[in-house]
């Protein structure tokens, strides 16, 4: 829709319809500082601080994000999500007891019970995701107007469960239908003040890229099976084709995800303001590569540190005539110390992984979406009237309990 670069006339520039762009001015070192402080405070507060950390993180992302000239504001509080979590615990106690009970059953019964419980958990996580989205939308202000969400979380949860089962049964063939259906339900129920968001896309937006990749993967899988089975192919050919299959499969996920976000988001309108988004598949793949490299670097540093500490301890123990084996065994015999050391190492590892993911996937992706978002006909957004309650009064506890919290 933009004029060729050669057109210099003022008139052409002003005739071009105004488009609102978005910006993100968050910086990785700032977010790192926030996360580091938060993870350290988790220890003395026995984990309670995570509700404050989530809130601060969201506040960070929201307040550094601008649509046009106005920043988003996150109005949620840590106490809301803390109370939400307490409510979620009450919901989970029966589940927990069921898990415990089936653990004592015969392997067959335990397996059936486990599958049933996992299905129920999946259903519940759909419910939690929808409710959590509602919470975040109702806690988001732009130009003093709240977003909100209508629709039923249970309807969404059942829809999601049904679609996932169907997609699993059809070996993924119904994926574009599922993606469009769930996206439509989420966005058609989204409101900015009195403006309803509408989605007029369908599975067709995703059909080309998805079925292309699906067919390619099917051919590759068939080829690698054939190469392994067939004598003429041989193991080398089989390995080559199957590693190619894995590579294509890995690249397919960000590729489809980029197409899905780009094409679906570009079919939504906020009231009368059409939204467009363009995310490149290669940018997403690059993001995952950077993430993998950073993880590798962190793992190397950690391994070096561990090796250094262990060899250092051995050196010290031989220098001073101390039997390191005896110390180790004394340490091992104190079950409290051993378990505490394991717990500390585990928590450290988990915190590091979460931080790397937040800094190199969370932040990168947020910035990518925000900087590539455009809203046409922005003046229609000047007359939006406030609507929608601040409800729910308590935060997305269930999502936290299910570990699907996110932003």
């Amino acid at each position, binding site marked *: 829709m933009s004029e060729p670069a050669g057109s210099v006339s003022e008139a052409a520039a002003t005739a071009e319809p105004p488009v609102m762009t978005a910006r993100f001015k968050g910086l990785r070192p700032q977010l790192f500082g926030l996360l580091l402080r938060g993870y350290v405070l988790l220890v003395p507060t026995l984990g309670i601080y995570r509700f404050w950390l989530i809130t601060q993180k969201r506040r960070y992302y929201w307040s550094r994000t601008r649509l046009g000239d106005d*920043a988003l*504001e996150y109005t949620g509080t840590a106490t809301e999500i803390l109370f939400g979590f307490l409510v979620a*615990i009450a919901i989970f106690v029966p589940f*927990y007891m069921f898990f415990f009970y089936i653990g004592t059953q015969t392997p067959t019964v335990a397996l059936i019970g486990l599958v049933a419980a996992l299905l129920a958990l999946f259903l519940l996580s759909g419910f939690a995701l929808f409710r959590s989205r509602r919470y975040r939308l109702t806690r988001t202000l732009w130009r003093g107007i709240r977003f909100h969400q209508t629709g039923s979380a249970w309807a969404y949860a059942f829809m999601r469960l049904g679609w996932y089962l169907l997609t699993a049964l059809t070996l993924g063939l119904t994926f574009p239908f599922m993606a469009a259906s769930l996206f439509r339900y989420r966005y058609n129920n989204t409101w900015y003040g009195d403006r309803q968001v509408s989605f007029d896309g369908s599975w067709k937006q995703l059909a080309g890229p998805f079925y292309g990749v699906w067919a390619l993967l099917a051919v590759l899988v068939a080829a690698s099976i054939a190469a392994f089975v067939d004598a003429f192919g041989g193991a080398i050919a089989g390995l080559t084709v199957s590693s190619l299959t894995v590579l294509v499969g890995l690249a397919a996920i960000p590729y489809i995800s980029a197409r899905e976000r780009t094409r679906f988001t570009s079919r939504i309108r906020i009231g009368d303001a059409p939204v467009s988004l363009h995310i490149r598949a290669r940018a997403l793949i690059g993001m995952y590569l950077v993430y993998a490299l950073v993880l590798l670097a962190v793992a190397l540093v950690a391994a070096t540190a561990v090796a250094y500490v262990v060899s250092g301890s051995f050196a010290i123990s031989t220098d001073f005539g101390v039997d390191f084996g005896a110390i180790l065994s004394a340490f091992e015999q104190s079950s409290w110390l051993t378990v505490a050391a394991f717990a500390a190492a585990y928590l450290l590892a988990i915190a590091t992984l979460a931080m790397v993911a937040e800094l190199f996937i969370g932040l990168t992706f947020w910035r990518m979406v925000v900087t590539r978002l455009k809203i046409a006909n922005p003046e229609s957004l000047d007359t*939006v009237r406030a609507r929608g309650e601040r409800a729910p009064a308590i935060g997305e506890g269930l999502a936290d309990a299910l570990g699907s919290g996110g932003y």
Partner: protein
Amino acid sequence: MPPVAGRFYDGKTSRVHAVEVEVTGAGVEGGFVFIREREGGRELARWARSELVLVPGDPAALRLGSQLADPAARLVVEAPEAVAALREALPGLTAIRRRHRARQVRFITASTAALAAVIAAFVFGVPLIARQVVAIIPPPWEADMGERIHAQVEEIFAGGGTLARCDSNPRSPGNRAIAKFVKRTLGPEGSPFEVRVDVVRSDVPNAFALPGGRAYYFSALLETSDDPNAFAGVLAHELGHIVNRHGMEHAIATAGTGLLVGMVLGDVTGLSVGAIVGQGLVNSHFSRDAERAADEFAIAAARRLDFDITALGKVLEAIAADTAMDRSMSLLATHPLTEERTELLASADTGRGDAFTPAEWRAIRGMCHGSKTKIK
């Protein structure tokens, strides 16, 4: 203060008002913040300085609301000089921030203290409660559960098959000698369950009891000592677990502590490594008491049957002398050998005789010298 430029949202419509902001009044909280349209000067809002709300977010900008206005109404000032000027004109903002912060710190402290109290209640209360709960669970239920756990154990240790019993004939001399010892050890009171001891082939020196009366004795442990009393001592210890229903007690305590750890880590399903490790942390306190009780049972049995219990301590020490790697999989992993335990066993004033006759002991020692292959 000269008026500064800002943006104002009234919270009712999305219109952005370009405004001029003026602060009146003296002192920390007296006076008002006037918000006027830049073009035309119409007054949009007049917020009392004592009712201002400081919205947290980007520290480079100043975002204000009022407790008396629409909760979504905002005054936003972003130009650095304007932010500095307004901050200077509104010294009360620092106090607002400090009050908010102090409130949060108090809340976090109180929640942490509450959580610590809950944890303490669990750590000390759960074993007590588990004891009471076990007392009301009918033994047949426990035996039933034991059978299912037995099926799972077979799956874990024998990889889907069954554990290789050294001698599956219950009427063989070895098994009869063990049955006789079990009967004598349990004494006239007997056990709430039908006790069944299996000697199975394994390279791991271990012995353990399940809820509901089953006990396993691994061949590698049997090979470690030539002393019949070592075998008898370990067996009596495991019988102590069965009679005291420690397995069931442990299962109940685990369920309780698992819920607690889920609360702390935010993973209520208890499926993560963190939840499992955390449970271990809480449960180690509990298992120590159980080990002492089982040792005391073994000592009492040794007094009654007149055999030497110090051999049990020697078996534990012999295993402790193995490498750390092996140890982590052995008896010690579940039966931590503390000095307290060794002392208790060494100083126990029991008999000096043997638990088995030489013929019985030969039969037991010979149980695992059959032709079956060892499982790893």
